[in-house]
């Protein structure tokens, strides 16, 4: 036993650390998702001069609606789990997992901090530092189409099938744009590892401007945001499900299976926010904060403890995520929905040429600067 331990010490340490990271990070994400379902209703309420849910209470304690996600969850569990008689039972049961699992798996490549030293060991604050993390993101988000399509097809309902067709067409189209908008970043940072990209954004341009992705590629950031919202199936691109009017792919789903689809959508909001923060807004980088503390452009220094620096970086990442999640909620409750032909037009005749143009210009500038 001891020999096995001594021989595989590094492996065991890695496995243990990874398990802890998965548990902590995924639970943080799930908790934030639950709060996001409440935030969506509260933010929309405040935008429309309303109050929002504030009645759900525990032992008479309402806390302005903080227990609403719990009430929603209990309600979802108590609902009848209905399966249509002619449905493909197995695929019908699997579809919610196909929607949820790829989205959750994506969090493994997102760096939520630099590293921490514990008992002399160095732990990266990222579950899996894949050298091709960016491609992992694109590949797995492509898998999410299966959840949509299986959900719509296996119910054997023509309207659900139509919704699934719309959804698959939309997701496939915007997948292309999403990938192409990120190509510019790949060319600039020269790495597809998300941690490398974040570290590269810690540099300063002209001695004072943080070299965040949005500084290099402001245009790609807008395209990315549009494509990501479309990929996420949120308003103004929510005609996949069309909560209020159009019939969507999960129309035959009820109870927790339906909740899984909804949950996947909310997890995707967090994912898009984290990706936007990671790729374009410096991830966990705080401007002028380095491993040893603040070093301002003027030369002023403020040395800080390692743990304080790490906590600030993780906090900065969380703050950026929260900001973008809020921004996506505001976008969702501001804009009206596209028509399907407008959606396809926007993707193939506007966004795609613009994304290609962005790559061309990025390449030309890099060539002119002699960085290639």
């Amino acid at each position, binding site marked *: 036993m001891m020999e096995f331990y001594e021989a595989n010490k590094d492996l065991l340490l890695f496995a243990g650390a990874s398990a802890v990271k998965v548990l902590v990070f995924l639970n943080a994400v799930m908790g934030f998702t639950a709060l996001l379902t409440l935030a969506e209703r509260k*933010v929309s309420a*405040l*935008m*429309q*001069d*309303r*109050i929002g849910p504030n009645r759900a209470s525990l032992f008479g304690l309402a806390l302005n609606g903080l227990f609403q996600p719990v009430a929603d969850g209990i309600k979802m569990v108590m609902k009848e789990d209905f399966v249509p008689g002619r449905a493909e039972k197995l695929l019908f049961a699997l579809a919610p997992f196909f929607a949820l699992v790829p989205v959750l798996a994506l969090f493994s490549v997102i760096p939520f901090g630099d590293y921490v030293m514990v008992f002399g060991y160095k732990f990266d604050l990222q579950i899996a530092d894949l050298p091709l993390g960016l491609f992992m993101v694109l590949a797995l988000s492509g898998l999410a189409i299966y959840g949509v399509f299986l959900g719509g097809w296996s119910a054997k309902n023509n309207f659900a099938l139509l919704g699934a067709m719309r959804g698959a067409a939309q997701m496939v189209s915007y997948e292309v744009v999403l990938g192409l908008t990120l190509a510019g970043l790949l060319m600039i940072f020269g790495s597809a590892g998300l941690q490398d990209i974040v570290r590269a954004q810690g540099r300063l341009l002209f001695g004072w401007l943080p070299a965040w992705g949005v500084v290099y590629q402001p245009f790609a950031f*807008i395209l990315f945001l549009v494509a990501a919202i479309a990929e996420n199936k949120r308003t103004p691109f929510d005609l996949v499900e069309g909560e209020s009017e159009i019939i969507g792919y999960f129309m035959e789903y009820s109870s927790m299976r339906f909740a899984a689809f909804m949950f996947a959508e909310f997890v995707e909001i967090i994912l898009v926010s984290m990706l936007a923060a990671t790729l374009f807004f410096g991830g966990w980088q705080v401007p002028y904060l380095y491993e040893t503390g603040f070093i301002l452009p003027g030369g002023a220094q403020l040395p800080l403890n390692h743990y304080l620096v790490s906590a600030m970086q993780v906090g900065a990442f969380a703050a950026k995520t929260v900001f973008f999640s809020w921004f996506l909620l*505001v*976008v969702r*409750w*501001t*804009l009206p929905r596209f028509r399907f032909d407008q959606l396809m037009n926007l993707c193939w005749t506007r966004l795609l040429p613009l994304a290609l143009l962005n790559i061309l210009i990025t390449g030309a500038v890099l060539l002119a600067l002699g960085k290639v």
Partner: protein
Amino acid sequence: MISVKKVDNRPLNFLERLYLPEIARGLLVTTRHFFVNLFNPKGIPTVQYPEQTLPLPHAARERTRHRLKVRADGSPKCVACFMCQTACPAYCIHIEAAEYPDNPVEKYPAVFDIDLARCVMCGMCVEACPEDAIAMDTLEIPGGVLDRNALKLGREALLRNLAGEPSLKGASNRLANDYLKSRGQA
């Protein structure tokens, strides 16, 4: 006279066709509302209804929970004529008439039920009543209960005079007034 409203259908200019500046403008509006309401929740016009009520405007004061007026001797002013039940468009009034043993002139409602769950608060019963016996001026707004049966009002729940109301004397009917006078109650 036909009023004509001119709609501005000019084609979108270049900035508007770009879509993004207009999106930014829209986001600015909603974001302003968000932050104004976030830091000043008192400004939100929402009323937490069952716990908190607004003073009713004038006309609405005559469209609140029903009551049946009571005479000085405690008998209902209602004579069970079924006018309100006939006038009611929601069929929410149910009356069963009965006769006084010693009164040859009037009937009285042995049963007078109003199902507030069906009532549309139109006030037609009040207008129909020839005796001015039913009124909708209690200023209580029905609804917001957890049990549907709580919305079924019986005779006893309906019979009430408002505080400070001059005690009602007599009936509008001459024969009934004569009868009441003979009993020394008018």
